[in-house]
Each structure stands twice: as structure tokens, then as C-alpha cells.
């Protein structure tokens, strides 16, 4: 690397020298760097009048030949403000001054960011990962954070309704994917498909998605991958300003927005946000739906009772200096959203279509209310060579599901007056989590070592008349060491070891109603115990080792590692009817921790006009925890419903993502993003079957046109066509899903009002109002088509009240 750099410099100066000695030379050259001088590779440099463009090389250098006319050159690079500099004709044949790009965001944290953050991070991490910024989210804004990230190959969602979704990374979801916000694990109700992720997407400035087991970083649960929401960059020195976001959507008549205010003197800062959203029932391109064999008519294509609202608050504040930093994050995310009235409950009883259809904005039963509160502190300081960091956090997740009382099994037909829970409170989950972590980063020769430990305790209470999962307490702790070795300039090794210990105490639960039990032909009434007191302890040792090889245009990575996941309360001790599916779920207290072995490979080649990236992986689980649909029906706990039992089986998974980019002209780029996944159970009751929620193969082809329009900046127009293959590999109770063809149109621009750049983006999702099914949607089982055509407008207006001089 060093050599090539020197060689390039030499060439460069030779050219420069030639320039001076040869008046005929018509070259333009220079260097693109970040504001701190780090060279930026693969930035697009364009001569505006001719449209000729080149990419910078790995040292940030660019070079044009045969330039005759020039007025200005423009530099664009994702994540940075595009910059235009005027060049006079007299400058032809010279080396232009360095062009320094400014990050798109308020200001990037100096320690975290230098150079192209995403590029650098990808090249230093041997696991496959994707990083996107706020502007990407705004461009592809969906109903929830994960829906906005679905364009990334390998990333899908399990969605319910228009406002909530869970991450699905290479076919794994729920407790197999960890979501981390500001360095702390997000602890909601990850286990259920019917509740989304309690994250405000307006408050996300940068997300890192790790497509592979990252247990060594985040402990149990990160067996399938991680969604790491990085802390927002700090406001600039002596700045005081904010942002106003406004979003409108046509399909569910959503209006929403976010107001952000930040300020900083020298050492103290604050950054606050309030987000509000209100949406009506969403529309699907069909007028009737088949819900478990019976037909439900839809009024004006509205999915009855899927309206919702959200109100979120966030504040970050703290003290920042070179050596010491202490930041508090406080947030509260609150939402209320309806369930499709005809598809919830053991029997979709009492669905008063007339009442529901009288307004599409009201939220009637059944609905859920979720409140997620978080408070945390991150303190870091430097002592000599060491960077120490402590994190302390508390979270409360409070979720209630409201639905009319429907007796089933041996429940009394009339709801007792003296019950502990209100008549319409079907279920309630209340989770308190305390988290603590500490780490030390230091350098030792070529080694960059991180040592750390973390601990988490959870208290889970339940309520409501329905029962699925007992109350439980849980404790987890882990110890890890990570070593990054810079072998040579272009070779790097990542190695990690981690030890984890976890304990879970499940609490007893007894039915509030008696069941008829037949013993020796005698029928007696008994209050059944659905869960007994028991505890389990688990420990696991994990490792990961990988290499990165980055000789210029090529970037190569391999990684092999293990992951693990402690069985969760639902898997160990659930014992009741899941009202969303008409099924009885039975836990298995003898489950072992899930283990995973994964081999990851990544290859990327970047040329001036094109790039290709391929990321295949192979994964083996000796004991995947799987909810197996059995042939049994249960009389008591299951109220005559089919029994689904947690079991473990051997699983093979493999697949790949492929990303191609080709630049036809300086303002025209094409992209192909494809993904493929194959999973198979190698043992157990469903040997030969796939895993549930296996996303089918898909190919997204996008064409982006970046026109130069006067007074506008960074204008883009993208047409995306996503072909999703059919999914015929299913497991009960799934249904085969036919192939689909969906088009999305995305456009946006920036224009100046006063000193500020106003960011406007427009989207037409499902351009042709195509009726199609999504294999991984929560409502797939009831044959519900996906959202119809949807116009989305979003505006971001930054403002500053005062700026430093």
C-alpha cells in the first residue's frame, strides 16, 4: 500500500512536472479528502459543463485528460455534502487545491469518523455489514425503520400493519437478531411477530447492519445478526439550531413529523426531538380477504382497524471534552395501533363492520399499546494509551393488547366481575431491564485490543386474562476480548473470544378458571397450573476469527465464528393459545442453548465506472430452536387447538447477496441488488423442510438519474424494479407464495432557502398498485396482499438560530 501510494505520488508529480514543462498538456487533477485531510476513495468528480466524470482512487486522487473547456467541477460522495468549486481555464494543466468534503450531518464525531466511515468500517470488519445514513432512510422512508432498510440485500422485515416491523436478516429474526441503540441492547418483546420495533426512525442518524453471528460483540441473541443504531453525531461547537421533518403518505393517510432542536457551547450540549405520527387504516388492492376459510369483505380496500398513532420524545445531553465525555440519552416511544379486526382473536367475534367502517382513522378493539422508555449514560475517558467506556442503562417496555373477552376452552362464558384484569385486557407484558457494560480499548504494537464485560438483568411481569408466557426474571453476563491486528498495510486480522453466562427463573402461573378434568371416568373441576417455578442456567464460549485484505480496488474478507442464543421464556415455558394464529404453543423446559457455526466470505471490486460485491455465507446449527406444528390437538391449555411445540433440529443455511453498480454516464447509474437464501432442517420432525419465514430469492434493479438543475442540488430520480421469486419451500402452516414484480419510484432534491438546504423527497411505492403477497409478512397466512400504491412526501428543513464565528 505504502509503495503503491509512493508510486502514485511519483507518477502524479511526474505528470505535474510534465504539465509545467509542456504547455500542450490539458489535464486537471487533484485530491478529495475529508475535512481532516483523510483521502476519500471512490468519490465522483465531474466536470460540470462537459459531464465527464471519474472516481477518485484509494488515495483520493482524480485525474482528467484532454480538458479544453472548464468552469467548475463537482464532487459527490455518499454521506457528504456535494461540493462544487469553480475552476478557471487558466488552471487547466495544474494540480487543483485539495477539495475537502463536509459530512452531511450536523457534525460527525471526530473519534468515530474519519475518512469515509462506511468504507473504512467495511474494510476493517471481517463480518459482512452494511451501513446507511439518515439520508438513505429519508430516501427510502417506509412505515417503520426496518421497512426503510428493506432495499439492502439480505435485509427483509416481518411486518404487521403499516407501522411496525421486525428485522429479518438472511431469514433470521425475533430473538436471533439483536437491535442495539446507543450501544445498549434494545429489550422489547422481540419474540412476537405481532409487535414492531420501538424505534423512532427520525431519530436514527446512522445504522450498521451486521449480516452474521455477532455474539462476540453483543452476547446471546446476536446469533443471526445485529442492527446497530449508532449514536447521533454531536452538534458543532457553539451551534444552536434544529431540523423540522414532515412526512405525508397517501395510502394510509399518514401525517407525521419530527422536530429537532440542538445546541452546544464549548463542552455542554443537548439534542432533543419530538416525533408525532397519525395514520388511518391502510389500503390493499383487494376487496375481500380469506381469513382461515371464511371470507371477509373489505370496505373501500381499507384493512379494517389498522390505524395507529405514535408519539416519541428523545433527549441527549452531556459534557464533552477531548479526554472526557459523559452523555445521557433519554427517550420514550409510545404507540397505539389497531390489529386487522377480522383476523385477531381465537374467533374474530363481534366484528361490527359498520362501526369499524364508519371512520378509517379510529382505533377500536383489537389494538395494542406499547410504551418504551429508555435512559442511559455513556461515559468515556482517555488515560494514556487506554480509552475506557462505561455504559449504564435502564429500559421499560410496557405492552398491552386490548381485545373483547371471548371465552374458549373452559373459560366461563361470562367474564367474572371480580377479575384482577379489566375485561378487555387480553394480555399485558411489563419488562424492566437494567444494563451495564464496561470496556477498555488500547493499542499494543500492531494490536488494537478491546476488553470488556457486560451484564443485564430483566424482570418480566404479565397481566390480562389471556395466558401465553409466564412471568420470569433473567440475568445475563459476558466477558470478551477482541483483537484487531494490522499485519501489513493491506492485511488485517480480527479475532474475538467471549464467555457468557445466563440464568432464567420462570414463575408459576395457575389458571383463573377451572377446567373439567377426567380422572377414572370422574369429571372434576380443577384450576390448572400452566407454568411451574423453575430455573435454568446456561453458559457458552464463543469465538470468531477473520481476515481482511484490501489491496486497492479489491476488498476481500473471510470470517468464521460461532454464535449462541439462550432459550427465551417463550421457548422454555409458553403454554397457551396464540390469539393471532389459532394455535396452541407449548414450551420445552429442556431446550439447550442454540449454537451456530458460520463461514462468511466477501469480495468487492471497485472500478471507476463499476463495482461488484458478493457476500456468500454458510451456516450450520446443530440445535436450532424451532416451533414445530404437531399433529396433536390440545383440550385444556390449548382449547382444542393444534399443538405447536418447541423442539430442536439440525439446520443448514446458506446464501449470498450480490451488489452490482455501473455508471453509464456521469449522471446515470444502474444497480442490481440480489439475494438468495436456502435453509433446510436436517433432523427432527420436519426433516427436509425449510425454516419458517424464509425469504424467497429477489433481484432489485435500479436506475438512478442525477440531472443538473439550476438552483437545485443533489437531485435524483430512481426507478426500482424488484422481482421476488416464488417461495415453494414451506413448512406448516405456511402457504406457497407466488412470484411478484413491484416498481418503486423515488425522487428528491435539495434547494436553498436563506442559508439552509431544504431536502425534499418523493416516493411512489408500488407504482402500478400491484396485488402481490409477501412471504414474510405477518398477514401472509390470511392471504392478505401487500400495501397498494403509496405516495410519500417528505421534507427536511434545517434551521440555525446561531452559529459559531
Amino acid at each position: 500500500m505504502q509503495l503503491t501510494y509512493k508510486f502514485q505520488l511519483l507518477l502524479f508529480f511526474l505528470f505535474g512536472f510534465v504539465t509545467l514543462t509542456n504547455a500542450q498538456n490539458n489535464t486537471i487533477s487533484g485530491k478529495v479528502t475529508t475535512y481532516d485531510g483523510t483521502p476519500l476513495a471512490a468519490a465522483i468528480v465531474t466536470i460540470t459543463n462537459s459531464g465527464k466524470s471519474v472516481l477518485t482512487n484509494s488515495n483520493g486522487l482524480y485525474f482528467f485528460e484532454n480538458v479544453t473547456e472548464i468552469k467548475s467541477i463537482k464532487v459527490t460522495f455518499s454521506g457528504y455534502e456535494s461540493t462544487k468549486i469553480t475552476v478557471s481555464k487558466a488552471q487547466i494543466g495544474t494540480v487543483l487545491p485539495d477539495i475537502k468534503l463536509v459530512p452531511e450531518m450536523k457534525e460527525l464525531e471526530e473519534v468515530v469518523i474519519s475518512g469515509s466511515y462506511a468504507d473504512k468500517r467495511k474494510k476493517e470488519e471481517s463480518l459482512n455489514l452494511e451501513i446507511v445514513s439518515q439520508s438513505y432512510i429519508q430516501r427510502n422512508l417506509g412505515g417503520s425503520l426496518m421497512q426503510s432498510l428493506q432495499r439492502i440485500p439480505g435485509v427483509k422485515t416481518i411486518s404487521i400493519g403499516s407501522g411496525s416491523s421486525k428485522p429479518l436478516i438472511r431469514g433470521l429474526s425475533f430473538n436471533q437478531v439483536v437491535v442495539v441503540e446507543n450501544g445498549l441492547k434494545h429489550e422489547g418483546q422481540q419474540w412476537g411477530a405481532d409487535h414492531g420495533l420501538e424505534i423512532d426512525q427520525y431519530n436514527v442518524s446512522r445504522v450498521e447492519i451486521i449480516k452474521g453471528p455477532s455474539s462476540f460483540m453483543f452476547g446471546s441473541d446476536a446469533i443471526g445478526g445485529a442492527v446497530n443504531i449508532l449514536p447521533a453525531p454531536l452538534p458543532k461547537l457553539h451551534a444552536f439550531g434544529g431540523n423540522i421533518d414532515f412526512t405525508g403518505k397517501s395510502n394510509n393517510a399518514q401525517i407525521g413529523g419530527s422536530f429537532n432542536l440542538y445546541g452546544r457551547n464549548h463542552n455542554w450540549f443537548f439534542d432533543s426531538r419530538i416525533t408525532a405520527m397519525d395514520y388511518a387504516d391502510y389500503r390493499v388492492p383487494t376487496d375481500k380477504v380469506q381469513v382461515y376459510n371464511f371470507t371477509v369483505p373489505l370496505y373501500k380496500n381499507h384493512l379494517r382497524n389498522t390505524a395507529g398513532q405514535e408519539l416519541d420524545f428523545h433527549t441527549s445531553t452531556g459534557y464533552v471534552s477531548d479526554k472526557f465525555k459523559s452523555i445521557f440519552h433519554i427517550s420514550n416511544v409510545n404507540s397505539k395501533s389497531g390489529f386487522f379486526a377480522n383476523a385477531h382473536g381465537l374467533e374474530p367475534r363481534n366484528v361490527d363492520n359498520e362501526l369499524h367502517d364508519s371512520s378509517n382513522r379510529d382505533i377500536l378493539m383489537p389494538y395494542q399499546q406499547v410504551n418504551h422508555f429508555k435512559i442511559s449514560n455513556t461515559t468515556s475517558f482517555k488515560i494514556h494509551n487506554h480509552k475506557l467506556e462505561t455504559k449504564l442503562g435502564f429500559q421499560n417496555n410496557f405492552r398491552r393488547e386490548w381485545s373483547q373477552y371471548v371465552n374458549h376452552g373452559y373459560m366461563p362464558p361470562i367474564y367474572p366481575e371480580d377479575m384482577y384484569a379489566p375485561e378487555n385486557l387480553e394480555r399485558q407484558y411489563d419488562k424492566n431491564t437494567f444494563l451495564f457494560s464496561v470496556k477498555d480499548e488500547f493499542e499494543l504494537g500492531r494490536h488494537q485490543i478491546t476488553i470488556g464485560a457486560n451484564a443485564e438483568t430483566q424482570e418480566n411481569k404479565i397481566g390480562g386474562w389471556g395466558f401465553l408466557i409466564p412471568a420470569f426474571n433473567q440475568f445475563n453476563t459476558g466477558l470478551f476480548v477482541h483483537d484487531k491486528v494490522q499485519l501489513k498495510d493491506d492485511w488485517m486480522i480480527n479475532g474475538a473470544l467471549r464467555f457468557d453466562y445466563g440464568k432464567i427463573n420462570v414463575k408459576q402461573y395457575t389458571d383463573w378458571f377451572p377446567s373439567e378434568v377426567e380422572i377414572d371416568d370422574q369429571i372434576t373441576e380443577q384450576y390448572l397450573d400452566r407454568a411451574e417455578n423453575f430455573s435454568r442456567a446456561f453458559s457458552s464460549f464463543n469465538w470468531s476469527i477473520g481476515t481482511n485484505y484490501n489491496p486497492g480496488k479489491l476488498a476481500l474478507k473471510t470470517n468464521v465464528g460461532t454464535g449462541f442464543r439462550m432459550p427465551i421464556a417463550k421457548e422454555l415455558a409458553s403454554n397457551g393459545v396464540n390469539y393471532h394464529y389459532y394455535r396452541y404453543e407449548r414450551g420445552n423446559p429442556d431446550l439447550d442453548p442454540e449454537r451456530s457455526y458460520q463461514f462468511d466470505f466477501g469480495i468487492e471490486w471497485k472500478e471507476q465506472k463499476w463495482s461488484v460485491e458478493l457476500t456468500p455465507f454458510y451456516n450450520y446449527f446443530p440445535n436450532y430452536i424451532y416451533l414445530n406444528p404437531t399433529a396433536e390437538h390440545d383440550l385444556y391449555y390449548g382449547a382444542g387447538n393444534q399443538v405447536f411445540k418447541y423442539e430442536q433440529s439440525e439446520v443448514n443455511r446458506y446464501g449470498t447477496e450480490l451488489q452490482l453498480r455501473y455508471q453509464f454516464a456521469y449522471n446515470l447509474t444502474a444497480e442490481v441488488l440480489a439475494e438468495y437464501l436456502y435453509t433446510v432442517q436436517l433432523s427432527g420432525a420436519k426433516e427436509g423442510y425449510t425454516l419458517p419465514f424464509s425469504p424467497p430469492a429477489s433481484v432489485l434493479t435500479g436506475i438512478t438519474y442525477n440531472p443538473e438543475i439550476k438552483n437545485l442540488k443533489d437531485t435524483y430520480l430512481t426507478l426500482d424494479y424488484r422481482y421476488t421469486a416464488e417461495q415453494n419451500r414451506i413448512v406448516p402452516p405456511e402457504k406457497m407464495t407466488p412470484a411478484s414484480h413491484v416498481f418503486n419510484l423515488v425522487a428528491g432534491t435539495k434547494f436553498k432557502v436563506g442559508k439552509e438546504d431544504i431536502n425534499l423527497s418523493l416516493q411512489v411505492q408500488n407504482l402500478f398498485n400491484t396485488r402481490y403477497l409477501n412471504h414474510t409478512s405477518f398477514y401472509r397466512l390470511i392471504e392478505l396482499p401487500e400495501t397498494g400504491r403509496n405516495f410519500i412526501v417528505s421534507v427536511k428543513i434545517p434551521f440555525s438560530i446561531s452559529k459559531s464565528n
Partner: protein
Amino acid sequence: MRKKLLLSTAFALTLFTFSCSSDNENIDTEYPVIDISGADAFPIQCSEITRGQKLIFKARFTDNAALGSYSLDIHHNFDHHTHSTEVSNCSTDANKQAVKPLLYLKSVNIPEGLKSYDAVQEIDIPVHIDPGDYHFLIKLTDKEGWQSLKGLSIKIK
């Protein structure tokens, strides 16, 4: 040159992975069938039963591979909730509050390895229960866990 070699190796590896996806897919994806079209099948949509008598449930179950179990469920429909999987709507009484409605639950394992099974089940309809509109639910699974469902509207007089 070395880079080209690496690139082509990677592609070859991927191709190999894809071509490896074994397609010996002899897995069962067919649902079992609840057949109540037979002459002696009972109840069917809109059947009527008198209190104090025995209801003799009769239906034929079939599957392409092997049947699993079935479950029967009788519960009141005094509030007229939608349930029926059948097309014809039966005449219903006026909505009313349940006092002592009949609740019947039964689950039966079908002997292993059968592709066809004629289910018969005697159900006592006690005298002292609320008469009116009821639902009769039949759930059937096969060995692999595929489930079919039939919801019938019946009247107890």
C-alpha cells in the same frame, strides 16, 4: 493476475453453492380433507338437534400421506359472530345473553398411518342447557402438522 484468480474462485464457489441446493423435495405440503358431503355425515351446515338427545358426529377424513388427529368444539353463537366456512346462511334466533350455554371440547388421535378415516363420535346434548344458535368446529391435522378447519352453524332446540 492473483486478483483475477481470487475473483473467479469466488464466483466458482458461489456457483457451486447454488448448484448444490439438493432438490430431493419429497416433503408433504398437502392439507388433509374434511369431507361432510357423505349421505350420513352429521352435522352439516344448519343441522338441528334437540336437547336431551345424542348428537352422532360423522365425517370422513382423508390425507395424501397420513392423518394426525381431530378436534371438535361446540360453543354458543348467541352473539352471532362470524365463523362459518360454509356458504349457506342459516336462519338465526335473536341475539341473547348466555346463561348456561353448552360447551363441548373433544380431541381424538387418529390411528397412525391412515390415509382415510371415518370419524364417529357420540355427543350428549344435556337437557338443561341454553337452546339457540351454536357453532360446531371441526379441526383436522395430518401427521406433518397441516391443519384444515370447518366451522358449521347448528341449532339446538
